[in-house]
């Protein structure tokens, strides 16, 4: 039986050198920024695609966000996702409870028409609001086991197909390894893999994929954003050590100073 994996991703502003805030301080001013998928989630998509490639199966990518989030779905398709789902919002930020409720409903809906997802992957946290909780809330709503902070995933097969998943995460003095029965939910961390870039053919194929879409509906939770504050900027200085081969001695000196080697 083919493996079914779902990845939940979020459209976020691309991190620039300096993040500007809107005048009212409630949002990131994305005027100069493009948008991207949260980095942890990019890794989740990559992991899902690799698992599906190796074990045979399909990858569905689900996002909740403004209509423009289609760009992030297409990007996921361009690196190998098979099915795309948009739960559309009006663009205003949704709190984690509301987001999780809408996602849980969406997953139930997707599982009504087709088989249950064997594995659902979230990013550990989103790159913009960083609430660290949507995945956990969805797992709770769906009554499925969930572990966050995962940096390695292995599927365990029994006779018919995948029966459980082993998930590993780093802790201060080593690793924790969990074995979860399927269906399960994991929160993935950057570093689990090196996401591929899309190919030109992949990008073009992604444009032809149909996207299932509906309006998201869920009641707001109790959590509200009051305002964002930019931390004090850390200044750094760049020293140019020289040009071309002439820079070599200075580079050697610096590496020695940093303890990379001894002379």
């Amino acid at each position, binding site marked *: 039986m083919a493996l079914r994996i779902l990845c939940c991703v979020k459209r976020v502003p691309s*991190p*620039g050198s*300096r993040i500007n805030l809107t005048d009212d301080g409630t949002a990131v001013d994305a005027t*100069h920024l493009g948008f991207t998928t949260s980095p942890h989630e990019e890794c989740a998509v990559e992991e899902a695609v690799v698992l599906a490639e190796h074990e045979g199966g399909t990858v569905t990518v689900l996002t909740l966000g403004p209509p423009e989030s289609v760009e992030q779905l297409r990007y996921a398709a361009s690196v190998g996702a098979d099915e795309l789902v948009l739960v559309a919002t009006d663009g205003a930020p949704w709190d984690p409870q509301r987001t999780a409720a809408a996602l849980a409903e969406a997953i139930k809906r997707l599982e009504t028409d087709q088989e249950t997802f064997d594995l659902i992957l979230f990013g550990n946290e989103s790159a913009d609001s960083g609430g660290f909780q949507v995945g956990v809330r969805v797992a709770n709503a769906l009554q499925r086991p969930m572990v966050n902070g995962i940096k390695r995933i292995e599927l365990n097969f029994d006779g018919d197909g995948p029966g459980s998943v082993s998930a590993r995460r780093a802790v201060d003095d080593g690793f924790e390894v969990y074995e979860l029965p399927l269906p399960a939910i994991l929160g993935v961390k950057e570093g689990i893999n090196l996401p591929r870039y899309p*190919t*030109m053919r992949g990008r073009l194929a992604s444009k032809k994929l149909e996207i299932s879409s509906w309006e998201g509906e869920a009641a707001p939770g109790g959590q509200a954003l009051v305002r964002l504050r930019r931390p004090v900027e850390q200044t750094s200085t*760049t020293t140019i050590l020289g040009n071309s081969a002439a820079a070599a001695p200075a580079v050697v000196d610096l590496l020695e100073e940093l303890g990379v080697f001894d002379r």
Partner: protein
Amino acid sequence: MSEFPTNAKVVVVGAGIVGNCLVGHLADLGWTDMVLIDKGPLPNPGGSTGHASNFIFPVDHNKEMALLGVQSANQYRHLGLSVDCGGIEVARTPQRWDELQRRMTSAKTWGVEAELLTAAEVAEHVPFVDTDVILGGFYCPSVSVVDSLEAGTVMRAKAVNAGAVDVFASTELLDIETIDTPHNGLSKVTAVVTDKGRVEAEYVVVACGVWSNRVANLAGATIPLVPAVHQMADVGPIDILAETNNEIGYPIVRDMDTFCYERQSAGSMEVGSYAHRPIFHHPDEIPSNDEAALTPTEMPFTPDDFDQQMEQAIELMDMLGDAEIKYAINGLLSLTPDAMPCLGETAEVLHLWSAAAVWVKEGPGMAQVVAEWMTYGYPRVIDPHGADIARFYDWERNDEHIWARCAEHFNKTYGIVHPAEQWVSRRELATSPYFSRQKAYQAEFFEARGWERPQWYNSNADLVERYDVPARGFGRRDTEWDDRWWSPVTIGEHLNLRQHCGLVDLSAFQIFELRGPGAVGFADFLAVNKIDKPVGSSTYTPWLTPDGGFRSDLTMMRTAIDTVRIVTGVFDGGRDAFWIRKHMPDDGSVSFTDRTADITTLGLWGPNAPQVLGELTDHDLSQSGFPHGAIREVEIRTAAGPVRATLFRISYVGDTGWEIYANWADGPALWDALFDAGESHGIRPTGGGVYGSSGRVEKGYRLMGAELESEYNPVEAGLARPKVKAADFIGKQAYLEAREVAPIAKMCTLTVEDQTDTQGRRRHPQGGNEPILTGDGQRIVDSHGRVSRVTSASPGPSVGKHLLMAYLPTELASVGTDLEVMYVNERFPVRVAAIEGSVFDPEDIRLKG
């Protein structure tokens, strides 16, 4: 780093390829006490240089772009920061294949080695091209890839090491201070204010790329350009590229019909596009260095705009489909409303110079132009009239115009552009008093810097039959290209003017007035020929550069004891107005007024012109009473009452007649009166096809910007008078010296002796720099390195030949010499028919007889 200075001779703002090369060239020319600032860090401050694709295709149909491209490529080579990788422009369509023939022609003109390749031959150079997609290619071995960041660094370091410049990176310009001058509204720079301090400066140069207009605005000046997106994607790794172990191992491919290029960059391929929708940004929308995700001019990629280009790139090179898109940007570069750079002193602020809208491919050469201009008063390397920032009229300097025109030409970056191609956007910016009447005559309007000028009138279609135009060999042309933007009606108008008379709207003339006790003396300082003549005299005269080349060519009239009227062409009005204002005396003895909007001009010419005018005025119009070159104030009877007009007996078409100057508001009445009076004399509205082309070229009259450029002097152009006036004038010393030696080249009129091409079609060279060749097909270059090329071309209906104008080395400039012209990559026999004189009525009997 040095302490931030409080004063400097020159402050150059912007350390991209242009600013860096500029300080290098200025240092070479002896300038010191310079300051170079940039708001970004070095060596890549974040402008367009930092993400440039860094290749140079040296063939262009435009002389300035071609020669400065070659000049720039050579400067990169001289620095050792260039690789000749070769480049191939491939054709997918027959129309493009024809264009490649024209590229071959321009390559011949500019002396660039090039050859046409079959599709299979293209694949020998670039094995990963799908030969089924293309018809062939235009191969140019000297296409080069350069290191523009390093070249800028080296040029800057040269100036630093010479002690000529102090460099301050991460220094933001906040203001440019100016003071008013007596130069008719021009102000002058005094200082720049930065976040590091204020610097008093004699000169400020804006070399700020996409930010240039915003920076110039600080001083009250404009640099008409818009930051525009050019999308690029770097895809890889690709084995066949990586195996070259080279930054660039294969020729660059320009996929001309899809407006894309594919350029190897080590193991990857850079795919760049000029095919996407025009995407422009106001400078205020460009992020700061701090805010930018990459650099300010590497803006977030918008993939939807690039999808079609990807499909086309994969069509041409299948291997690209499976390569990963590692880096993709909406890179910003500068576009201007006429697709030419903005060089020279700004038209609003003295000593504020623009070195902007310059791409990496022409950066070092353009920087040399500006450096020489600042040093010698005019560039020596080339005539810069196409790039001169003073060329723009006010209506060309606003964002609405800039954006509209740039949107129109962006997709023509790799387009097939006809020499006479007309703009679609922003038309009817300036129209004459006769515009509605001309529309009623079904005029075909050509645009000239915003002005609408009838090129021919379709209401004159009957003249084609009346004069049997096809039987004379001037009917519809055999190829669509030659026939485009042309009509045989213009031949009918020409022959009607020669037999009866024609009325030409000249209201786009730019008319300036100098007035005051110093006006005549100042006018004489500008002009080669004498202006201090009796009131009512006119002078057709060159203006020269300090080096004695042509700066302008126009008519000056002494209309009162203290007044000189200057009449110049619409393409030169902005430049000439600035030249006048810049050189005006400081003592207030001369005032300058632009009278263009007050005065309308009509040209009435043909053997019946005196009869037509004679019905409307009692003034003596005989050759004895009103000789050629004279000016008279007259009253002209019209249905609306008498109209005061200035008659100037002069001709640019070779038949007698007048330029008639009147108040703008009186124009319609004057027009109607002339047509009423002219009806029985065969008058017809007559367009620019006769005035600027066939009538002019039959007479060998020179045109500024075509035959007359700063590389040539009046002796070579055949415009030197027997005597030189006593008064001093700009370029006088050089002019005197030029008169002392035999000219190296001479302006000639040539006839095309056989227009039939190898397919049996009659062809019509367009005057687009086609090379004149020796009988055995060799380029002709004079001892000053100037190539013989067609400067104007036109049918000559009254002489039955297609005519060309070109400079030839003196040893070839004799009537009867047989040569060749290359057109669309074929050679046609031509013969020298006139030197200094004309092929039609060489004795000027029709003018003065």
